[in-house]
């Protein structure tokens, strides 16, 4: 559509020449297109095919929708779905508002702005595997740092990762620590994009800085929150690295932190049930798709 007016402006000769050279552009795109075919299109179709077969040992036998039936009636699968959503939801409820408040403060504080940007973003560049390692010690029930301070403050000292009922919250804590820097940076970038005139006008009208924050800043940040919510959910639904390091493929203790991806890994790569794992993968894929579309709709956002 857009190229039409350009063609008219151009003299006839060069327009013909461009057409003749079209294939050049495909060479520029060759690595990308080849990669998409090999590492995107083929695997997704193959995964769909695999999900319709029983694959154990070496052979493949037609299974129809058996794998899907097994997955969808499996308590373990739904448990992993529940864990994934639980961890993702609470992590976002905590991190997005907290990150936004910190970002607002960093944005308005007059000294050491860059220092704070560096400090708060640092956890986010740390490999999540290393972060998980550190947190197994921070959250250790007897010798850990967190419980020591909780004890000092006279608060209860949960068993964290050792107890199925608190293990999810241990993971949420790790997630908040790791993700908050990203939330802050994104919020900062968008805070700076809000037109200063809005603030100037309201200052003249006598608004306090808290009122400005409430009635100008927050409404202007809705798009940013939507973005964080959507990328946050896409990330949360794919959660694997830290729960695997801490709880292994089964998400111990007692499957309390097994995410959907860990379930897929458990069946695909420790049990070599590729068909079953592929079916679970497709169910996850559909969940992500529906959820993303739903998120886009309610946040009224175009990607």
């Amino acid at each position, binding site marked *: *559509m857009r190229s039409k007016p*350009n063609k008219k402006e151009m003299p006839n000769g060069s327009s013909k020449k*461009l057409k003749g050279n079209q294939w050049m*552009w*495909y060479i*520029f795109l060759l*690595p*990308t*297109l*080849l*990669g998409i075919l*090999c*590492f*995107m299109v083929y*695997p*997704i179709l193959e*995964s769909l095919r695999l999900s319709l077969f029983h694959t154990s040992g070496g052979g493949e036998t037609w299974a129809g929708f058996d794998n899907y039936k097994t997955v969808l009636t499996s308590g373990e699968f739904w448990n992993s779905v529940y864990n994934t959503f639980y961890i993702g939801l609470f992590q976002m409820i905590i991190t997005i508002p907290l990150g936004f408040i910190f970002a607002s*403060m960093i944005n308005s504080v007059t*000294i*050491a702005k860059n220092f*704070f940007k*560096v400090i708060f*973003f*640092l*956890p986010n*560049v*740390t*490999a999540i*595997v*290393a*972060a*998980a*390692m*550190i947190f197994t*010690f*921070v959250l*250790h029930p007897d*010798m850990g*740092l967190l419980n*020591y301070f909780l004890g000092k403050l006279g608060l209860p000292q949960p068993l964290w990762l050792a107890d199925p009922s608190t293990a999810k919250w241990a993971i949420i804590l790790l997630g908040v620590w790791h993700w908050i820097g990203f939330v802050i*940076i*994104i919020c*900062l*970038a968008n805070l700076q994009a809000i037109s200063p005139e809005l603030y100037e006008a309201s200052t003249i009208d006598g608004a306090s800085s808290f009122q400005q924050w409430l009635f100008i800043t927050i409404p202007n940040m809705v*798009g940013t929150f939507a*973005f964080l919510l959507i990328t946050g959910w*896409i990330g949360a*639904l*794919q959660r*694997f*690295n830290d729960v695997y390091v801490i709880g292994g493929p089964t998400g111990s203790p007692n499957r309390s932190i097994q995410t959907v*991806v860990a379930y897929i890994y458990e069946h695909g*790569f420790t049990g070599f049930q590729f068909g079953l794992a*592929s079916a679970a*993968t497709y169910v*996850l*894929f559909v969940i*992500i798709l529906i959820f*993303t579309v739903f998120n886009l709709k309610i946040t009224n*956002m175009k990607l």
Partner: protein
Amino acid sequence: MAALTQKKRFYISNLIKFVILLIGGFLLMVPFIWMISVGFSRSANVTMPFPPSLIPKDPSWFNFGIVFENGQIFRAYLNSGIVTFSSVVLGVASSLLGGYAFSKGKFKGKRLLFIVVLATLMIPMEPRLIPMYEMFNKLGMLNTFWPLILPAMVNGFGIFLCKQYFDRLPDSLRESAQIDGAKEFTIFFKIYFPLTGPIAATLVILTFIWSWNDFVWPLVILNNQNLQTIPLYLASFTQENGTSLGGLTMALATVSVIPIIILYLFLQRFIIQSIALSGLKGE
């Protein structure tokens, strides 16, 4: 009088924010500080230092000595280095070429192909994990670095960034070169490529962090201990020893984290700027 109180209030609110930020920042740093402290604490492999203190009571290089002793950590570094370097080169090259074509090119199916490229951003790793594993298995590439490097060819986000960047560079540069009879590749390499410094730096940093920290895919592909990347080496160490060898684990974590922190401190200006400018935001 009124002006003075307003000024005062400004200073007070500034001070409060500053203090809250200091406390928040300190809390975020505590796990790092403790990691280093435990790593330097000699007795931590027998009993963790308790009550916890941010300064080790029996400081010693003992744990670090053991971490470096068998050389496995250096090998993991080398492996991570090879994989990351190759992925960065491949990913950045294909992003620049692709972004340039989508920005300056005129060809059939451009819009559709661009949508396809953007759609790859929405496709998670999981649906592709098993088929890609089987594919590389059939090609005899398990326990090689190829499966970790080649998929870097597809960088939807990189292409998107580059397209936006090239859109801002004037077309007139191309047109004058075309009149002189230059071919597309010559135009790209001689005229536009030298101008891609800032966007290339951004892509290098982002790809570096992604590739260096990648975990699931290397975990599936590499079973040979000698090929482990840093995250795999860390994970296997934790799973073998759990929380029994505190000092050693934390020394290892420190050694693994420090390079990326140093890199980050040097390049943080670029990273923060690039994330801010990349369109990685709401509007």
